Each structure stands twice: as C-alpha cells, then as structure tokens.
C-alpha cells in the first residue's frame, strides 16, 4: 500500500515538470511585456533594462525554465513580479479558500446528487426517473458565472440570507458552493443511478428480497454500499472541472482563492505566479486522483488486494 502511494507520488514529479515546461512555453509566446506592465507607462528606459536584467528575462526561455526547475526543487517558487513577495507565501495564503470552496461544492453536489440518483434508479423508467435526471442535468447546463449572479440576486439581495462576497465565515461559502456544486452534480447523480441499477439486478439483492426484507431496507443495507464505488470515482474525477469552475466562481463571489489569483496574474503578466497557480491546481488534481484510487481500494476489498 505505502509502496504504491510512494510510487504514485514519484510518478507525479515528471508530470509536474512537464506541466511547467508547457506553461513556460505558452507564456513565452504571450505578447505582453511583464516589465512594462510592472513599471507602468512612465518608466525610464534605464529602469526598464535594469528590471529585465534583474528578473533574468533577457536569457533564452529554456535557460529561464531550467533555472525555475532548479529553484523549484529547492522549494523556491520564485518571486511574484507584481507583489514582489514569495510566490509560495502568496499561494499558501490562498489555498485554504479554494479548498474550502471545493469542499462545500463537493458536499453540496453529493447532497443533491445521491438522492436524485438513488430515486431515479429505484423508480427506473418512470417520470420520477426522468425528472430526477433532468434536474441533475440543469446544473451542468447553466454557465457558472450567470448562475452565480442569479444566486446573488436572489439569495443575497432579495432574501438577504447570505453575504454577497468575501470569505470570512462558512456562510460566505454556501452560495459559491452551490453555484459550483450544481455544476458537478449531474455526473455524480448519473453514475449513482446506473451503478444502483446494476447492483439492484445482482443475485444477492434478489436473494435478500426473497428472504422477505423490505425493498427500502434492501436498498439501504445492500445496494447502496456497492453502488457507491463508482460514485466515489466520478466524484473524484469531477474535482478537475470543479477546480476549473473555481476560477469563475471565485471571481463572481470575490473569494480570495487560487483561481482568482491565477486570472489576476495572467492579466498582470505575473508569470511566476501563473506557474505557481497552475502547479498548485495540477498538484491538487493529481492528489485527489490518488486519494480516489485509494478510497476505491478501501471500499472494495477486491481492489485492495491488487495493490499490496
């Protein structure tokens, strides 16, 4: 087990290095000039040259990248062009917000998706099935930022239930969590439904039924547990789209997370910060995938056997 985890973590390293290379390459194509952006339009040519030299921007891209990787291995993410602080410090300050948002979104997605999926499976091919699946699809069909703004209008302004923006208390995360969670609900509901269907048809369920157990009890005690495995996987896979959606959600709701930082940094041509953000996202994504795989093993002993 530990060996497996270690192996997976080691395997992440070349992927992360590859990611930095790709992003470095893309950023080198960008038209803007970070130094000009930093110094503003009234800068003198001397100050400009001095700053370019100091940031090492006069070196070839590949040299810059090599330097970045070497520093990265020493745990140095570089210095932000814009704020002139350590990128790692800035990232560390933002990660909790993004994690909290992801947590709320996932929880809300599961709270809504599981019942929808289960009901749909139990009432397969009835109008209830249809309606449940339709509802779950609505979330994924609405552009996140529009949905977010509508939520703001309704819950913050009309009803005054939630604060409109910020990240002070958990209350601040309910609405963004909803906007983002609804987006991820569809796949979770769908997979819950189909794996429930598959499980319901299994022999042991029939056996349980024939023993005289009530239908509800069978569903609760036997079917659900087995149906959960694919649900966990899909929930994990949703984290990817969740992270991407967090960029928009954080902007609309003013949450100080990595997503917003990344957009601001792209707009401010703050390359070390952009790289840092993408690295954090990629790392989060890879770690979640690893956790999903492990959970998978945890829930299903047959899979666990393969890892050891």
């Amino acid at each position, binding site marked *: 087990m530990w060996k497996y985890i270690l192996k997976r973590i080691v395997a992440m390293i070349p992927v992360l290095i590859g990611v930095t290379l790709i992003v470095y390459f893309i950023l080198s194509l*960008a*038209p*803007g*000039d*970070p*130094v*000009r*952006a*930093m*110094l*503003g*339009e*009234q*800068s*003198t*040519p001397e*100050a400009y040259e001095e*700053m370019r030299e100091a940031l090492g921007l006069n070196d070839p891209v590949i040299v810059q990248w090599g330097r970045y990787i070497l520093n990265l291995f020493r745990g140095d993410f570089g210095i932000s062009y*814009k*704020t*002139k*602080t350590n990128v790692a410090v*800035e990232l560390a*300050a*933002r990660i909790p*917000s993004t994690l909290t948002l992801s947590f709320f979104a996932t*929880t809300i997605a599961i*709270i809504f998706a599981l*019942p929808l999926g289960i009901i749909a499976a139990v009432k397969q091919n009835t109008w209830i099935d249809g309606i449940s699946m339709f509802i779950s699809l609505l979330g994924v069909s609405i552009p996140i930022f529009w949905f977010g*703004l509508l939520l*703001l*209008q309704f819950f*913050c*302004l009309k*009803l*005054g*239930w*939630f*604060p*409109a*923006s*910020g*990240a002070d208390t958990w*209350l601040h995360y*309910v609405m963004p969590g909803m906007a983002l969670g609804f987006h991820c609900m569809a796949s979770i509901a769908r997979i819950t439904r189909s794996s429930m269907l598959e499980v319901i048809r299994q022999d042991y369920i029939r056996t349980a039924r024939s023993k005289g157990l009530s239908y509800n009890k069978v569903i*609760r*005690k036997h079917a*659900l*547990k087995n149906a959960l495995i694919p649900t966990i996987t899909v929930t994990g896979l949703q984290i990817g789209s969740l992270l991407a959606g967090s960029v928009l959600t954080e*902007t*609309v*709701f*003013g*949450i*100080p997370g990595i997503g*917003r930082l990344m957009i*601001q940094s792209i*707009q*401010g*041509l703050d390359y070390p910060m952009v790289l840092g953000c993408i690295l954090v996202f990629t790392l989060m994504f890879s770690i979640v995938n690893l956790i999903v795989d492990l959970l998978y093993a945890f829930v299903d002993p047959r899979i666990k056997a393969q890892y050891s």
Partner: protein
Amino acid sequence: MKKVQLIGLVLLIAMFASIAVSCTGNAANTKSGPAIDYDTVVIATADETPSLGTATHNAVAGDYVNKLTHNGLFRLDKELNPQPDLVASYDFDENSYTWTFKLHPGIKFHDGSDLTADDVVATLNYTKTMPDIATYTTSYDNVTKVDELTITLTTDGPSASLLYDLAHHGNYIIPKELIDQDADMSANPIGAGPYKFVSWDRGEKITFVAFEDYFDKERAPKIKNIIWRIIPEGSSRTIAIESGEVDYIIELDSTAVKTLDANENVTVMKIPSVSHNWLCINNEVPPFDNVNVRRAINCAINRADIIEVALNGAGVPATAQTPAGMLGENPDNFGGEYDVEKAKEYMAKWGGDPSTIKLEMICSNDTKRRAAEVIQSNLKEIGIEAGIVSLDLATYLSETAAGNFTGFIGGYTSNEMMSFLKGVYHSSNIGSSNKTRTANPEVDRLIELASKTVDQKEREKVLMEVTKVLNDNCYQIPIYQDYTLSVHKKDLDNTFITSGGTFFAQEWSWKK
C-alpha cells in the same frame, strides 16, 4: 451499512445547516438596515494593491492604502494643490535652488519612534533607487540633514513639479531603521499616517485601525476601523452596498447608477473628472500619418452615442485635444462635431480607399469595449472596417508603449495641464506615455516654453497655443471625460472626491 448512516448524517447536518442559515440570515437582514457599526467603515474596491509598501509600486489601488498609513512631506489638497503635510514650514533659495524643509516636532511613527530628519534623508535617498517610482524621484537631489528637524535639498532650477513629487506616495516617509534593515516594506507598512495597518488577508481584505498618536490633531481620523474589501466583479460590489455589507464603493459600475439613485439608503457621487479618454491612433502607421484621415475619424464618431452606451450617460464629450477644466483649455478648431458628410469630405481630401484602412482598436475593459463597438459602427458609415481586440490591462500597457498597435481606447489622468501635455504629446515620451507617437518640434518647444513661464497669465496663453496646434493636427480622437462614480451609505459624512479621483478617508465620519 456504515455508508448509509454516513449519508443520513450528512443530510441531517445539511438540514440543520439550512435552518441555522435561515436564522442567522434573518439576523443579517436586520443588520443591513439602519444599524451601522459607527466604529467601522467598510470600503469596497475592484483592485487589490500589489503592495503595502510605498516605494515598491505605482498603482492607484496602492496609492489609496498608502494614504492611510503614510504621509509625505507634502500632500495634495481638494483642489489638487500641494500643501505642507509633515513639513511645518519651508523655504526656497532662488540663487542656489536649495529648498529647506522644517518638520513638525513630535511626529510619531506607528511603532512609537520619532520621525526626524534622519528618516526623511534615508527615505528620499532610498526612493531614488526604486525603479517603480523612478519618475517621481528625478526632481530633487543632495538631500541633507541640517538638524534633527531640518533638511535641505536642491533642484535643477525653478521646479514646479518638486512639491507634487514629494506629495506622491512613492516619496512617503518611512523609518530609517526599516531601510537600514532592508526590511520587506509591504510586510511592515510603518509610517506616520492616520491609520495603522492591522492585517492583510490576501485577495480578500485589508484592515486598518486609527493611529492614536497621529500628529495632525485637526485631521485625525474620526472612524476607528477601516476595512478594505476587494470585490472584483462590479455587480457583486453593487449588491454588497445594497445589502449593507459595505459602506463605500470606490468604483461604481455606470450601469448601477440608476438603481442606486433610487435607493434612499445610499448616496451616489458623480464627480466630473479631468480624465481625458480617447481613441488613440498610431500616427506612425499610414494612413494615420495623414491629418485628413485623422480629422475624418474625429468627426465621424458620435460622442453622445458613445457616452450613452459606454458610460450610460455618465460623462461629457471631449472638447479639445486636451482636457477641459484645466488651465489653458481651448476648443478652437477641434472639429469634433458629429458630421458624416464632413468626414467623407476629409476622406476625399486624403484620396485613398477607406476599405483598405486597417484599424484594430485595443480595449482593456467592458466600458472601453462598448465605446469601441459604437466607434466600429460609426466608422462603417465612412467605409472603414475597424476591428476590436480585448487585451487585459498589463498586456495593453506594454503593447501600446512599444507601439505595436494601430489604435486603442485609452485615457490619461493628470492633475494639471503641464504634466498632461508632457506625458501625452512631448516627443521625449515616445515609447512610454506618448502613445500617438507625436513628434512635433513646435509642440515640444511650446511645452518647454510653458514650463519656464512663471507668470500664470502668460503661461495660460502658451498652453492655449499648444492646444490649438494639437487641435489643428488632430493627433488623436478625444471621446469623453467621464465622471468618477462612487457610492456610500447616506450616513457617511464628509465624503469628497477630487477631480483626479482621490478621496480622503481620514476625514470621513458617521452622522449619528
């Protein structure tokens, strides 16, 4: 089986949560009404400052917070004239171009130490090494300590810009000790300003508390806490003031004015600004090097429509190549009245085929994009097919400074005509703020003449002359001067915004 219970538990928690939420929600609702926390003012803004340090940035968002925590030797008053701030008195020796400044006695920094001549000398020598604010540190030299409260410095002749430079946030005074330690200025924003820094939650808010030992008792802050909230999305900011979460919004969307004007809990401030906004065209790229093409565009665009669509009416049409409301304004021969026929005549004078003109307008925000869409549609009338490119601000700045463009929607905000002219039209600023890349020796000569003319009346004449020359040549297409739009709760008193867009949070108070 455990899983089922887990789900049950989660659902239960969710239920309780929603109940709890609706309860606290009601509480919040009542709070948003008349109840105001008189010890605190919450300011909402779109942009976060890059740094809390004074000499490490040249950002407007940073200037706002620097004004809270720091002071300069001088400050700009409501009419944008420099006034002594830390300085009690000053003197200028016309023979040696030496300035003598005497500090107020007993000024304390936030850390309790005294602000003395040593700190001023250390600061002004330190700021001269900082690239971000290099423009504001060229006017003075030879900063010397005379005694504990007196310093001298020299300028290159009579300088009108020195006092403005000393009032810039880049030259705000910081403790010598921090400079000697090479401390991180953003992490230690210690100054002698009216508010002390408390905490900075990156991307979310910055908190300040009033500084009890502030030296200027007359201008001491009246509200104890200031919370600076960063809310990037315009509509979210508007909702935040309506729901009562924030007390003041620095930048209000023009689209929200109508709604908020009707809201009796808030006051919308529409301040005519000196910010001059234009369609800038690169005069080095043919056919924009031809004055007839430029004049054609100038009268082909419908400024009233642009103001309506882009600003929702919150602005006035530009009247000249330089801003109205400054010394030396002059609408002579501007030729900006909307007249398609006249535009076609100018195009005929040029003689080329309008459909061959390539004009790509760079826009860095939604307002500019809306303006560009109207211009695009106007220019079609005279046969020019213009394109629109959205670039974010940083890319836009670097592209336009380097001259890699045909056109862009931009503007320039300056507190007085001299620096406006120097920045926008003087050939020495090609490659930075002279974006049209205008190189007219006559214009350069007149600008330099004006800077040496001490007499106000004489200077006005020269300045009007420059504007006339600029109007004749129509180097760019001025569109409008917009309003600074801010909004605050009705009970917030003494709010004032200068025509440059600056406000003075330390003077605010709550009506009780």
